[in-house]
């Protein structure tokens, strides 16, 4: 335990050292009022949407695991401000806000959380697995680190097609220790793929503080092992995130390859709905200390100070958000359950005309429903003799 304390102290120092230099920069330059308000809207939408989701979870309307992003909104809102709409995003399971900011409607996201047919994954996948082909939002993955090799593949495809798109790959800091991280960053750097790896260092992987899981505190430094550029960004600051990501995106579009960005942030809520906010692995005081630096409040204050946002404007945005979120919840509530046929749909996209793809009895299909062709090919399935 003595060791953990020491490294926590080291960690803090390093946090400060890395980030101080940039506070004086004039970050608001080049944004117009509408753009800034758009960012405010994204931040507040993210927050309120999740507050609503938490309520719905408590009421049993949402099941399974549900991981809230509250406190980390600036990482996404800032990063995405550096993207074009046709850029790809792939991420882990704490991704409601990323899905929303990439453009999936609150309705489609909420319906997915409710497990309904109108969800952005057809109700088949829930909170951890949001997707939208239309928005180049590639999900939404639950195996820690699993999305990192896939992101590398997306980067490979971009280069293969000689496009100037990029792929943003988000991960929690705990994913950095996975072998998948190491293998992927090496290939991305070796082949100069247009992938930006953004590590959201919210200090904990479930109940494990980063310094108890990694022998090196500075994640950005891990990029040296791959001869890859890296940066530390203030994940509580929209502008810092946007600037660091923009530099990386520019490099990637110019064919100069990937970047590793460590976004220092903090998770305000428990790991998932069943994990208390504080107690075992962090104190109430620690959480409160970070909540004072709430990224939404900080962002709003900054805009107000710069006369880019009035109270009335803020109120209007907030009201709009509340309406959107209520609408999303109502929509999700009234959206139908996926039909029983959906059970066997999309397991395969090509239903081969020969042989059986499914080894079960298929008696789960409702009467009258038409099964995928492969189910009936190759003998009947009532357990009697074959055709």
């Amino acid at each position, binding site marked *: 335990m003595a060791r953990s304390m020491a490294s926590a102290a080291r960690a803090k120092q390093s946090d400060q050292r890395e980030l101080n230099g940039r506070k004086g920069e004039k970050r608001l330059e080049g944004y117009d009022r509408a753009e800034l308000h758009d960012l405010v809207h994204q931040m507040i939408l993210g927050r309120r949407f999740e507050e609503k989701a938490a309520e719905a979870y408590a009421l049993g309307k949402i*099941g399974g695991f549900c991981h809230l992003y509250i406190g980390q909104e600036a990482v996404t809102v800032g990063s995405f401000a550096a993207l074009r709409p046709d850029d790809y995003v792939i991420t882990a399971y704490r991704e409601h806000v990323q899905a929303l900011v990439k453009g999936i409607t609150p309705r489609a996201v909420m319906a997915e959380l409710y*497990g309904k047919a109108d969800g952005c994954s057809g109700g088949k996948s829930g909170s951890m697995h949001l997707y939208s082909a239309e928005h180049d939002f590639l999900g939404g993955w639950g195996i820690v680190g699993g999305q990192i090799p896939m992101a590398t593949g997306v980067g490979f495809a971009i280069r293969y097609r000689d496009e100037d798109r990029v792929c943003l790959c988000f991960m929690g800091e705990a994913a950095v220790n*996975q072998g998948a991280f190491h293998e992927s960053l090496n290939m991305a750097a070796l082949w100069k793929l247009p992938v930006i790896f953004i590590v959201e260092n919210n200090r904990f992987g*479930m109940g494990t503080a980063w310094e108890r899981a990694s022998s090196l505190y500075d994640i950005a430094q891990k990029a040296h092992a791959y001869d890859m550029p890296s940066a530390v960004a203030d994940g509580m600051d929209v502008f810092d995130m946007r600037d660091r990501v923009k530099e990386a995106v520019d490099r990637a579009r110019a064919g100069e390859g990937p970047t590793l960005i460590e976004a220092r942030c903090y998770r305000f809520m428990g790991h998932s709905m069943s994990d208390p906010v504080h107690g075992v692995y962090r104190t109430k005081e620690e959480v409160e200390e970070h909540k004072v630096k709430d990224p939404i409040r900080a962002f709003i204050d900054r805009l107000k100070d710069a006369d880019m946002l009035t109270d009335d404007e803020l109120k209007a945005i907030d009201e709009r958000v509340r309406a959107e979120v209520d609408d999303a919840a109502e929509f999700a509530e009234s959206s139908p359950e996926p039909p029983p046929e*959906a059970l066997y749909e999309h397991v395969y996209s090509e239903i081969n005309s020969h042989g059986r793809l499914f080894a*079960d009895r298929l008696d789960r299909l409702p009467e009258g429903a038409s099964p995928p062709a492969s189910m009936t090919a190759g003998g009947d399935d009532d357990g009697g003799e074959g055709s």
Partner: protein
Amino acid sequence: MATITYREALNQALAEEMERDPDVFLMGEEVALYNGAYKVSKGLFDRFGERRVVDTPITELGFTGLGVGAAMVGLRPVIEFMTFNFSMLALDQVFNSAAKLHYMTAGQFHCPIVFRGPTGAALQLSAQHSQAMESTYAHYPGLKVCTPATPADAKGLLKASIRDDDPVVFMEGELLYNVKGEVPEDDDFVIPLGLAEVKRAGDDVSIITHGKMVHVALQAAAALEKDDVSAEVLDLRSIRPLDVDAILATVKKTNRAVYLEEGWPFVGIGAQVIDTIQQEAFDHLDAPLARVTQADVPMPYAKNLEKLAKPSAERVVAACKRVLL
């Protein structure tokens, strides 16, 4: 006898075996400070300290291989997978190192290690978090595979597994942790691997199963009783070694059987058991052997679809009636 939960039974087994043998240690994600993602290791960190209850980084391949190396030089690691879904990252170390080490070294080294954690689906955890991996593991010689369904079995079999000199894949269930049952309080209450147990006696049809599904089988048997069908429920308890004697005995008694399992059908455990039965009790069969499994699809999230996908007592009842036709 005390009535305790499955979780507490596992906890007792761990504590007793760690007390008994200083070479036993527990390692995995969140097992120490957090007392386990599902609280199976509650109190062990406080009791045994960070030397013997070790939180790992999220590196399944790495800490699995670490366990195998430690076992090779004589420790007796208990490696917790937060769930077996994540063990997919570690299969190389299980199949290529743990399972083969004793054989490849011609017996010079042993690999006394337990890999444990919940397998199969809980509630609405979706495709990546709802996989039953018994079949994946049981295929590989060199491994033993154990699937307790009750608190007593959990305790007795975990103790046996920790004392075993070979790698044991010990599969629990998230939905089993709160199940209560009577458990002997004896420190040396050990249930040997390879002994199936008749969890309910019956005459008309055998429901053979393992793990969490034992409870579904018992529900089905209760339902069948109302229709005057007497079903026997045989719980394999371990899949390797497989208690073929017990399987043949129940089949010869009822002449009809259904294999029930949580996992997917294609090369599921049921396929192997049915093959064994038809090879060794062919003339005792009055009807085809039936199977009840998960739908042959990745597990969906939506409540209605998940329910439809999982095996259920109703499906078991229907299968029993089919083989009784």
